[in-house]
């Protein structure tokens, strides 16, 4: 046994080269990485799909609705929902979905209108029917609807309200206001937050201290009473459009602090971050550092914050309009629709008036899922905090 064998002392270069490079993971840009991680988050992807659908509905609401949301049917006041069926009351299967018509009579004791299903009248549903006129984005006029009764009989999928207006069409119509008020509000918050937070983070010193203090104070103000007070000062004489913008401003007045905090924090952290240091050390110019490293990292955080700020605004608008001090009829938003559900008696008799709330919940859930997914994708190393 040769135990005294020692290593050759010179660098005897062998010709052998082993290349394992090809099994290394490919490097990809921050955006691609973020997208890949986002895709893993199933709920977030589902939320994104739901949001895309909702916003498509918000744009094409006239097409998706089955009737004009303002159209009154005095003979169908507070009609209950009539859901599409495939099987009729005798148990026969119909390939094409249909609804039954409604019979109504006045209850002699309560003087309430009572509805019963009229098995005599069967209206089958079909796609792309002609009906009430509407405009898309206020420009293109059409009377084509995604679906409706083939014979043009009134269809109340989700019931009607006190004036016999179709709740389904009204909820669809409400999509535009309820979903855009958050977007515009968040845009305002974003502008304010970027400016003020950026100032705070870049200038530092006393400016930073003062701004931080103001943000702290604004954060300690209870939102809803404050929103209530401010929106109550919006003159009743203002037009719906004016009110709409007034409310978005009111909503963003407290919300920008969240964006500002993130922006400032990121600025401070990024200035010190190792990779920026590394880029400096490697001789990169100032602009190169900013474009290549700061902006993508920073944008992802802002995107997360913005996504998570929108649901609060949607809830804010809904609450204010529900109380009657936000948007006012004839504008249609989910909060306005919920106004009718204010008293116990109405809800007990007509629970379907709560249905707009379901859509609020779905939209807010979707935004929260997407925001959570984005956060995990932007920063996979810290768990969900705050």
């Amino acid at each position, binding site marked *: 046994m040769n135990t005294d064998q020692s290593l050759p002392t010179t660098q005897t270069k062998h010709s052998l080269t082993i290349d394992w490079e090809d099994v290394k993971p490919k490097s990809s840009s921050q955006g691609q990485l973020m997208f890949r991680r986002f895709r893993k988050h199933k709920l977030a992807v589902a939320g994104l799909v739901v949001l895309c659908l909702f916003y498509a509905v918000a744009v094409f609401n006239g097409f998706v609705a089955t009737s004009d949301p303002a159209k009154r049917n005095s003979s169908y006041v507070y009609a209950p929902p009539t859901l599409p069926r495939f099987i009729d009351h005798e148990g026969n299967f119909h390939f094409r979905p249909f609804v039954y018509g409604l019979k109504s009579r006045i209850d002699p004791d309560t003087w309430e209108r009572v509805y019963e299903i009229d098995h005599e009248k069967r209206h089958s549903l079909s796609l792309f029917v002609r009906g009430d006129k509407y405009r898309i984005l206020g420009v293109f006029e059409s009377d084509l609807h995604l679906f409706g009764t083939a014979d043009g009989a009134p269809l109340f999928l989700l019931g009607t309200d006190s004036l016999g207006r179709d709740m389904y069409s009204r909820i669809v119509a409400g999509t535009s206001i309820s979903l855009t008020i958050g977007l515009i509000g968040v845009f305002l918050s974003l502008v304010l937050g970027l400016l003020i937070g950026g100032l705070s983070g870049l200038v530092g010193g006393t400016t930073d201290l003062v701004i931080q203090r*103001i943000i702290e104070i604004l954060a*300690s103000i209870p939102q809803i009473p404050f929103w209530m007070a401010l929106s109550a000062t919006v003159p009743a004489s203002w037009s719906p459009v004016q009110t709409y913008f007034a409310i978005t401003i009111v909503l963003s007045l407290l919300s920008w602090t969240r964006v500002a905090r993130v922006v400032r924090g990121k600025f401070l952290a990024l200035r010190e971050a190792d990779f920026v240091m590394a880029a400096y050390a490697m001789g990169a110019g100032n602009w190169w550092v900013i474009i290549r490293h700061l902006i993508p990292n920073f944008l992802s955080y802002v995107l997360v914050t913005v996504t998570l700020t929108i649901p609060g605004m949607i809830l804010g608008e809904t609450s204010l309009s*529900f109380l009657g001090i936000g948007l006012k009829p004839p504008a249609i938003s989910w909060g306005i629709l919920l106004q009718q559900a204010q008293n116990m008696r109405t809800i007990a008799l007509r629970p379907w008036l709560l249905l707009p709330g379901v859509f609020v919940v779905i939209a807010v859930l979707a935004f929260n899922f997407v925001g959570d997914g984005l956060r995990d994708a932007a920063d996979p190393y810290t768990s*969900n*905090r705050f």
Partner: protein
Amino acid sequence: MFTYILRRTLLMIPTLFLISVIAFAVIDLPPGDYLTSYVAQLEAQGAVVSEEQILALQKRYALDQPAHVRYLNWIWRIVRYGDFGQSWNWNRPVRELLAERLPFTIGVSVTTLVFTYLAAIPIGIYSAVRQYSWADYIFTTAGFLGLAVPNFLLALVLMYVFYRYFGVSIGGMFSPEFRDAAWSMAKFRDLLNHLWVPIIVIGTSGTASLIRTMRGVMLDELGKDYVQTARAKGLSEIVVIVRHAAKVAVNPIISVIGWTLPQIISGEAIVAIVLNLPTTGPLLYQSLLTQDMYLAGSFIFILSALTVIGTLLSDILLAWIDPRIRFDREG
């Protein structure tokens, strides 16, 4: 510790000042001279308002002066005389109305806060320790739902469910027979019977977000070195989790009282309107609808001041239990 409390209390003064400015802006913002509308209202009720009375009122609220004088006048009367002005709608001093309603608001809010923490901390710890277990998924889902359902909607749905399936109507803080009765054991029990509804309704969203926060912080802490050190000592897992990781994780949770409290008081306002509670919410709402701005502004001021004081108390509590803060700020 004492210097810390003193400094924090002094720091509160500019905060309160800014809040008072905002509140005054609310009072002052509505266009039109509210004295005129007040007088018009009195006259509509059949009262005769003399010139002197109008002048006296003008002087009291400094209505002929510029805004900053009006503000100083307003804040001076509050600080010096505790005079928050007159509610024109109720024709009573705002102070009296505040004294009636505020205790209930504070009571409901504090109880809700306690409930929120008592529920969220253990659930958050459990969710973190059993990350990705079915219970964790259930809590996470419930948490998302709790965040997504607006308070008032939850109140409405609860009201509907209880009415429809149990035939009881929930709402209010007392049964009719106790509403004006003097305090007694029976009245207190009646209060507890009613109180759980607003607590659940107001507390749900706060609990939901607190569970998520607690879970996140706890996951962070569980990954830290000192947890392994504690395990390496031979401590059992439950001791490691409760005595070490959770003890550290609870601190940031307490520090978020600063934003949980505004959330609760905010939610309380709207839930109280729906559930018809004798708290500040419905009164604020009515005052806004009737442009009774002194009442509204005072509520905003007091509610915000309450949250600021609540936050201060939570910070002091935090400094008391967390040695890092205690020593950092003292030295």
